[in-house]
């Protein structure tokens, strides 16, 4: 099980995947926005996305959980 966490404070701009999706290593899961820049959050492993902890419009802090891949 791999937890994907936020590297910085950011706004969640776009959710690209849904819980239950099969994702590949390097797939974009969500797109964050911080300081007028879009930052894609990528899957670090291939697997099943069992949890998506953020919603579009959320403000997340460094270290916050974004998703869990199994």
């Amino acid at each position, binding site marked *: 099980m791999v937890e994907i966490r936020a*590297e*910085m*404070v*950011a*706004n969640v701009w776009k959710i690209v995947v849904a819980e239950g999706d099969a994702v590949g290593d390097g797939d974009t899961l969500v797109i964050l*926005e*911080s*300081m*007028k*820049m879009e*930052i894609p959050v990528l899957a670090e492993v291939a697997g099943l996305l069992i949890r998506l902890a953020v919603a579009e419009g959320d*403000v997340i802090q460094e270290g916050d959980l974004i998703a869990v891949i199994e």
Partner: protein
Amino acid sequence: MLPGVPESVLIANRGEIARRIARTARRLGIRVIAVYSEADAELPFVAEADQAVLIGPAPPSLSYLNAEAILAAAARTGARAIHPGYGFLAENAEFARRVIDAGLTWVGPPPDAIAQMGDKISARNLMAAAGVPVADGSSEPVADAEAAVAVAARIGYPVMIKAAAGGGGIGMSVAEDADRLRTGFETARSRAERFFGSPAILLERFIARARHVEVQILGLADGTVIALGERDCSVQRRHQKVAEETPSPGVGPDLRERMLAAAVTAGQAVGYLGAGTVECLVDTQTGEFVFLEMNTRLQVEHPVTEMVTGIDLVEQQLRIADGADCGSGVRSVSPNGHAVELRVYAEDPVRFLPSPGVITQWREPAGVGVRVDAGYAAGNTVTPHYDPLLAKLIVHGADREQALDRAREALGSFQVTGPKTNLPFHAELLISAEFVSGDYDTSVVNRLRP
């Protein structure tokens, strides 16, 4: 208050530029009114203003882009003029019209000039008609990916994909072939729609090895347009400027003369008034230049021009907006020495990713030829809502070598802790062989960060 300037000015901006405009306004005896969002309440530009009005929550669309709230703040405080700074509403012709219709002085060019230059396609066409060189490209919006491929076949690869209403490097990308153009076109369209509210796209031939050189112009109250020298802005990451200098080490006397003349022609073509910047690309292979776009506002990097000319561009903006004569000193100015600006961003110095956070320590350098325009102080929080610019370090010297020496020294005593900053990147840049040689182009950062 001196004659020839407004009694009061509302600064419709934030951070370092709000503070910088306020500094000149105060010197001229003008009452300063700041507007701010909930996220910025603790920043120095709010505390230093004579009056400050909260205009809304953190997201720009609800605060610094909220024309209604800004005009209401002006009415409530009895502001006589509005200075938009750069970004936000600075190049919004509709906002400029509303300011004027409200009976206020707009510290900027005529709204029609903003509109004509704001659309990059109309600006290109206008410049070409005035005899200013432009890159091969589209003279009307490109409808879809297949139309883009057809345009690219005519002008040749690689091509630059741009948002017609764009700016600040956002939504720009380079395509080397038809496949990449198709995917790049769709991305550019959605970004253009999102960031600029218009999906219109244009294509231009991409110049592989180019310097980004721009000319500062001033449209005077009597209708004449003058050029105040060039700035080299080739040090860029993600098509956004990181460091600038004047004069450009890549521009000789002959090219300079032609570029300055073209910039004056560009300003005259739109009846320009106030401070503006004509951006060009210089092809380092051929030594020729093409018009890129015109920024109808004060530029982030305007201080380097101020350092070599001794002209306060904000003062000139305020005087021209009030219809006052600038004096003969401005018309006959000749630049002196060399100036460099380093933009201090809240971002990691390796990948240049944003790094908001609380500033625990802030120490600015000082010394001969050193100027710091900062938007933050110790204890402030850098939020993710706005661009990452924390401060600008501007350094002047008798020549380039002295300016770079002083910049290295000043940089060494610039201390920011809390958010990561690109200060270590600047230290590397200032000792890199390519930058020091002066013979660099817009890919210099990519070569330092392969």
